């Protein structure tokens, strides 16, 4: 009996020990639970950099920044578009200036050459070169007005014989009318033009101020020249004035040289 009591006491103590350990373990678990809850609360209060929902204020600030950047991006895109348009304008303007530069060079060279000599034949040769090389005409004639007879007669031709060009009375036909009026004549359609020596495709009066001394008559353009360019009209205007002056000056000079030579001959005769 005593033996059974001792065994029961021993087992009761063992059970109590186990129960105490279980109680301690439970208390430890509850403390850990409490600590973790506290930690969780702390973490919930602190904004995390990697995850979780950012505060509303930060969201608003970032949204505003995005909107600003979007606006800035749009502004830059607009500016790029504007610069591209300006570039196109500049490129077009550059080509225009390049053309104008070339045209001015043509006009300068024509003018320079026209006034580079006082020899009548050379002046006619230079006018011929300008018409061939700068305007691109293949058949043409330069007619000068004889003020005594009021007739226009060819003094230089290209592509046609001089004899083929008729003598024209002032006021008669296209050539005569151009010489009388001092107005340029252009046919409306170069392609449809049929050669007629009395009615050229282009007829330009050679004028010193309003005084017409002759005309330039063009009958045919070079095969590769399909139509007149704007610079051609400028060249015609230049020819009308400068060629007339050059022809007039060279004729005066030639006449004075001839007279001087005649006078010198007389003086030589008288003094010998």
């Amino acid at each position, binding site marked *: 009996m005593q033996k059974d009591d001792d065994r029961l006491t021993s087992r009761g103590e063992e059970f109590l020990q186990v129960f105490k350990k279980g109680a301690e373990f439970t208390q430890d678990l509850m403390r850990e639970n409490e600590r973790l809850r506290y930690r969780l609360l702390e973490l919930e209060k602190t904004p995390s950099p990697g995850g979780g929902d950012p505060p509303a204020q930060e969201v608003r600030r970032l949204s505003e920044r995005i909107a600003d950047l979007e606006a800035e991006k749009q502004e830059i895109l607009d500016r790029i578009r504007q610069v591209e348009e300006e570039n196109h304008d500049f490129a077009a303007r550059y080509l225009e200036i390049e053309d104008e530069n*070339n045209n001015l060079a*043509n006009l300068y060279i024509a003018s*320079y*050459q026209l006034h580079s000599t006082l020899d009548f034949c050379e002046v006619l040769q230079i006018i011929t070169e300008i018409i*061939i*090389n*700068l305007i691109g005409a293949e058949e043409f004639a330069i007619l000068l007005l004889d003020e005594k007879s009021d007739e226009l007669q060819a003094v230089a031709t290209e592509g046609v014989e001089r004899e083929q060009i008729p003598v024209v009375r002032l006021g008669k036909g296209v050539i005569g009318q151009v010489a009388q009026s001092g107005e340029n004549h252009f046919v409306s359609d170069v392609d449809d033009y049929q050669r007629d020596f009395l009615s050229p495709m282009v007829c330009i009066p050679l004028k010193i101020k309003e005084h017409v001394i002759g005309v330039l008559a063009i009958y045919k353009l*070079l095969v*590769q*020249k399909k139509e007149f360019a704007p610079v051609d009209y400028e060249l015609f205007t230049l020819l009308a004035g400068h060629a007339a002056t050059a022809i007039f000056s060279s004729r005066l000079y030639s006449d004075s040289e001839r007279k001087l030579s005649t006078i010198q001959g007389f003086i030589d005769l008288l003094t010998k």
Partner: protein
Amino acid sequence: MSEYNVLIVEDSPTMRQLIAFALKRIRGVRIVEANDGVDGLKKLSAERFDLILTDINMPIMDGLKLVSLVRNDANYKNIPIVVITTEGAQEDRERALTLGANDYITKPIQPTKILEVAKGLLRIV
């Protein structure tokens, strides 16, 4: 010291001036002018040239003869030649090219065209 020596063979002073005006836009270009083919050959023998531009219709010696002589001379055969003429017909172009011309420009002259062709043959970008 010039970078490019260019010879213009042309009997018309107006044309020479116009071609020279166009070519002077090339940086470092030096231009020598000749009145006809014979004058051109004389100038060729005096110095080195990088390009020749020649008219076809000229007195004394025409441009086609000049092209032929240049192409058959070991000293000059590699110089690029551009032929300038009033003739726009295909047969004239072919004749000049057959004789050895590198390119062909027809009148009326456009300075931009001369510049474009010259730059191409001088290998200027």
